[in-house]
């Protein structure tokens, strides 16, 4: 959801630029950005519904984000704190979650634990 919100912002930026410049190319780019912003929502909803393909779609999406994020940080040298966290660490963490864990968030934000627990 957080990634979707961030991607919606990208789509909004391109949409405003497309409107200001009355540009068809930027309009198409805004539509593509908007469509890509919906992918995390689709993955989340499908995972919650127990659809097996959602994990594959999520992995592909996060892998794409991670590859472009690593290229941005290492090749283009845009290695500022925000880009590193949002475009490398966040997709990396979600990819790890999708690859290693069952599609549940309980281990990330566990339920009330009367006796307390120490998890890592």
């Amino acid at each position, binding site marked *: *959801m*957080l990634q*979707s*919100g*961030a*991607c*919606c*912002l*990208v*789509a*909004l*930026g*391109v949409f405003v*630029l497309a409107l*200001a*410049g*009355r*540009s*068809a*190319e*930027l309009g198409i*780019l*805004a539509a*593509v*950005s908007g469509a*890509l912003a919906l992918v995390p*929502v689709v993955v*989340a909803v499908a995972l*919650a519904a127990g659809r097996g393909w959602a994990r594959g779609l999520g992995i592909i999406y996060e892998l794409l984000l991670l590859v472009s994020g690593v290229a*941005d940080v290492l090749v*283009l*040298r*845009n*290695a*500022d*704190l*925000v*880009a*590193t*966290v*949002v*475009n490398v660490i*966040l997709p990396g963490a979600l990819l790890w979650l999708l690859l290693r864990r069952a599609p549940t*968030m*309980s*281990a*990330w*934000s*566990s*339920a*009330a*634990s*009367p006796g*307390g*627990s*120490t*998890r*890592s």
Partner: protein
Amino acid sequence: MAPATSTLFAGIPLDHLPGLAGGVAALLLVRLRRKSLRATTLDALGWLLVFTGGVHIGLTFGHASDQRLLSLLFLANGVAYMALFLLPRDHWWWRPATGLLLFGTILAYVIYGATGREEPDPVGVVDKMDELVALGLVMLPHGLSPREARRRRVRWVIGSGASLVLTFLTGASIWAEDLAGSGHSHGVATCAPNHHASAVTVLRPVPCTVTPAQQAAANRLVAETRAAIAPYADVRVAVAAGYRPATPDGDGVVHYTLLRAAPSRPLDPHHPAALVYVLTRHGPVLLGAMYQMAIQGQTGPDVGGALTPWHYHTNICISVPGLFLSGMSTPFGQCPPASLRITTSDQLHVWTAPNPNGPFGDLDQAWARRLERA
């Protein structure tokens, strides 16, 4: 000289560095003391609370000397986060209290920025991301029996929708503050009249005085530029000379950039790096030229002191197919699909049309729009 490309600490003000250090130190401390924290839940939510708690406590030191009240608020916030992290989560009020604190802190940051008291910076943005993720995890439904599946689904939808909308609104407000503010001016704007820096436009420092020699040199550059680019008033001449629009077709103010290799002399008036036109109903009208250094990170030569400050842009997105400007990167450092985020080399505009902000000042957008409609 400002870095040509971003490094991990680029753009972080000195008084916010203790915040970042505090966040990292808190994570390390908890990691080292994990055995003595048996009553504490160390899941992702726990780590996120520790980080933001550490950031807020660290910021206390960064603002202690000049903003006492803000400093106290940071301390209270950081201590509250740490307390919530250390407390067991079996109290009914734990999630509502944590959610309210996270939401209140995000809201306070947005309001503080919107009223001009705080400029967005990387530590603030990363901390807000941390809090948004934590808030999303807090809103997840927990502890409901299978019989309450319907209620659980409703909570999922509300929590997910709220996370998405909050992230979008927070990012949009940070972006708006970023574009309206003068985060990277480094005090230059006060010395360079009619120039305003922003998060995406960094002004090079200039001396605050203008000598008669600098004034004469600036006047000479305007005169030479006006004479040299006069033939390009006809856009077809510019296209024949190798200039191409840097944004897709449309209208408004367009930079026509020279596609072939940059000239060896950055201030060559016969071959400026770009020509700026406003697209009117009667065709493109030449507004002026843009000079650009060939090498990224190299400071442009001083011509007229405070009259002619060079600038560069840090958050430009260029579409790979077509090589046109596809936008500016968001506060989260993201560009549209198939686009690259680049930092430009130093640039200097010379307006040969009567820009109200002067021949070197920022282009007056209202004036340009009037021209466009004329």
